[in-house]
């Protein structure tokens, strides 16, 4: 069967069972948009290519399947670089297809030419420039394989226009042949035994759980391990939901804005059982003073993570889905009563939990409206498996702190890159992936202004997401740092509460817009939002400008220097 390169690409995507592409056409990718008309694949026309990338990420986050985006050459390719970098940092499987100028024009500074493979080399797991239509099925097959196996990540296929127009004899490769790519899946048995021994002897162990557990789909395995040994668990920003918050063993989020108990448990720990986490500086604080008494077991599918920041006593390369059950089996073999052994440790943790809970003070008069109160009310009024997507800033930290995540893949955020503007498009993608679930974007006013136009996409495509803007009239997180570390010298952080008018803006984009100024309006507004299912809803919550995120480990300090919030200080 003879196909054009463009037809071969679409057919290859169908072979990979792609159900949706987020994209926006243009000159160099035009040939591919034609056979797309005849395909079963749904295309969602975004309003900016960055949005296509983040939407594909949101989709991948909640489905565990690769997100696919397709854009044209030059400016469109550069527009999607942020999303690639974001996905690379958070190990999100993406396949991005970019158009490229014709092969004879490459290198001539042709119209809308950019060196896309060069530009994206450091933010993709791998990329391909196709030079002949016959390569298309092989490259697509390889691309999906690389994106989804081992440590997942984004890949990019650059497709010159003339290659799309060439004809080729259709085939579908039986298998992938990448001699230099063979991820290690099975953990080394000796190392797993070593790990089990350390665990059986530890008196203050902590399961330090990162996003890798979600990527590996190993949440059940984690639960079994933790419950068997009764070892407490901290879930990093990327791992919220990997272990249920409602489980008494869950200590919540560690790190710069982690809660006191989670942070301190690691500082006092004698054994960190690190599963798919990477000792990010936002978790460790000053790394020299991080978890000073702890031995480290580090399990990761990416060998380069082992020893990158902290030298592990027991390094294990492998897929958590396989390694965790092996580890549990080895521990059981040792027949040590770990539970009893850990009782004093759990008791100590519980006293901290009681003494230093997360807290805030909502004035009963209703004003100023506290952002944490909004998040708690949203949560109480939402189904338990609601998907929460956030932007980057104070609102992100509060969302992570005050939501209760009891289901995997219900928390979608930009952890590694910290990309403002992530929330709206990612929420859109998440809703496309899980139309059965309620999707709330908890966004900042600053973030919202970066990518809000994707609500036009959401309305046009009937993707009824809900957006809660925690509108504190500021680039709040930056304002907080200026307040605390720059003598309250506020430099370029004020945004205004009512410019733009978020309600009118929402309405202009075909959404329902609601404004909330006081705590006693919160419930009615959320009720109304929850009742709407045929279009997106935006609630403009006018929240307290001066609220700060606590606890906080100031940048460069060790985690022992954690600063707790004013409410906890009062109780002390």
């Amino acid at each position: 069967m003879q196909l054009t390169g463009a037809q071969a690409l679409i057919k290859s995507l169908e072979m990979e069972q792609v159900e949706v592409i987020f994209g926006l056409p243009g000159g160099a990718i035009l040939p591919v948009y034609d056979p797309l008309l005849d395909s079963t694949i749904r295309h969602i026309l975004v309003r900016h290519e960055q949005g296509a990338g983040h939407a594909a990420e949101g989709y991948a986050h909640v489905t565990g399947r690769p997100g696919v985006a397709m854009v044209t050459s030059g400016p469109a390719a550069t527009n999607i670089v942020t999303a690639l970098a974001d996905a690379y940092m958070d190990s999100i499987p993406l396949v991005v297809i970019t158009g490229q100028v014709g092969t004879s024009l490459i290198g001539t500074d042709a119209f809308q030419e950019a060196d896309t493979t060069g530009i994206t080399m450091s933010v993709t797991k791998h990329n391909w420039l196709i030079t002949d239509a016959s390569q298309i099925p092989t490259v697509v097959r390889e691309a999906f394989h690389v994106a989804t196996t081992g440590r997942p990540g984004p890949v990019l296929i650059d497709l010159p226009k003339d290659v799309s127009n060439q004809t080729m004899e259709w085939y579908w490769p039986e298998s992938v042949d990448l001699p230099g790519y063979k991820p290690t899946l099975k953990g080394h048995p000796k190392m797993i035994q070593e790990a089990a021994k350390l665990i059986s002897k530890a008196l203050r162990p902590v399961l330090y759980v990162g996003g890798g557990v979600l990527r590996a789909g190993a949440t059940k395995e984690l639960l079994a391990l933790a419950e068997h040994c009764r070892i407490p668990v901290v879930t990093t920003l990327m791992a919220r939901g990997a272990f249920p918050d409602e489980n008494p063993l869950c200590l919540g989020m560690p790190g710069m804005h982690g809660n006191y108990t989670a942070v301190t448990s690691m500082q006092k720990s004698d054994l960190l059982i690190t599963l798919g986490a990477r000792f990010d500086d936002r978790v460790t604080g000053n790394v020299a003073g991080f978890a000073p008494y702890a031995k480290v077991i580090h399990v990761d599918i990416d060998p380069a993570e082992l020893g990158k920041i902290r030298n592990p006593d027991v390094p294990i390369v492998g897929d958590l889905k396989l390694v965790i059950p092996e580890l549990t089996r080895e521990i059981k073999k040792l027949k040590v009563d770990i539970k009893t052994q850990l009782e004093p440790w759990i008791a100590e943790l519980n006293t901290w939990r009681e003494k230093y809970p997360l807290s805030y003070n909502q004035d009963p008069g209703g004003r100023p409206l506290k952002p944490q109160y909004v998040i708690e009310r949203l949560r109480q009024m939402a189904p338990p498996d609601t998907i929460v997507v956030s932007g980057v800033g104070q609102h992100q930290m509060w969302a992570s702190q005050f939501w209760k995540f009891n289901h995997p893949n219900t928390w979608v955020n930009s952890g590694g890159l910290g990309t403002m503007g992530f929330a709206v498009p990612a929420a859109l993608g998440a809703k496309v992936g899980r139309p059965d679930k309620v999707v709330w974007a908890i966004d900042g006013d600053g973030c919202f202004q970066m990518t809000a136009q994707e609500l036009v996409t959401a309305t046009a495509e009937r993707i009824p997401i809900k957006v809660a803007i925690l509108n504190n009239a500021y680039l709040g997180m930056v304002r907080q740092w200026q307040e605390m570390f720059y003598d309250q010298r506020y430099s370029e952080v004020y945004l205004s509460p009512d410019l733009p008018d978020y309600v009118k803006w929402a309405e202009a984009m075909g959404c329902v817009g609601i404004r909330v100024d006081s705590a006693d309006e919160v419930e009615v507004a959320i009720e109304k939002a929850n009742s709407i299912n045929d279009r997106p809803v935006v609630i403009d919550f006018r929240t307290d400008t001066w609220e700060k995120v606590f606890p906080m480990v100031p940048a460069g300090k060790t985690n022992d220097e954690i600063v707790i919030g004013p409410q906890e200080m009062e109780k002390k």
Partner: protein
Amino acid sequence: MTFSSSVVPMGGNRANLEAKHHVLSVLVENKSGVLARIAQLFSRRGYNIYSLSVAPTEDERFSRVTIVVDVESAPLEQITKQLHKLINVLKISEINAAQAVEYELLMGSISTSSETRSELIELVRIFDGKIVDVGFDKLTVMLAGTPKMLDDFEALLGAYPIVEIQRTGRVALQKLDRSAPTRARSKSGKAS
């Protein structure tokens, strides 16, 4: 070889340099862009390349990249692990200078006068080098040797007006096993 250890190496710090340097022999797929990926990885992760050479292997599907890295810039283990993550990288062997045969090529064009010409030719002869081009008042000389030999040679050339000197960066192979095979066949006999 006739040259003696009394020859002063350039700057006298080769030993220091060697301690910081490590040789990685990297087998890669012979595809366009592979060198860019390697170079890019080094710069992005803040590692230093001291020298680098690339050429196809006996099997045309693969190329061998010999990289001398400045290991003070990052732990070698982290560098090799990151390199391994490149999809086109098949195999990385770390070659310990003490257990390797290392060679490098130097070419230099030197201005000569009637007095210095024969002296220079003599120097090239002592080092077992070659005169590869002759001009009216210049000679182009060539020497293949260990990096240390090349340093010495280069230092001595410094006495003459140098027009241009180029070095290739080294290539290296693991030293061969010299022990006679014992009763059981040793596995070290296999190329690994």
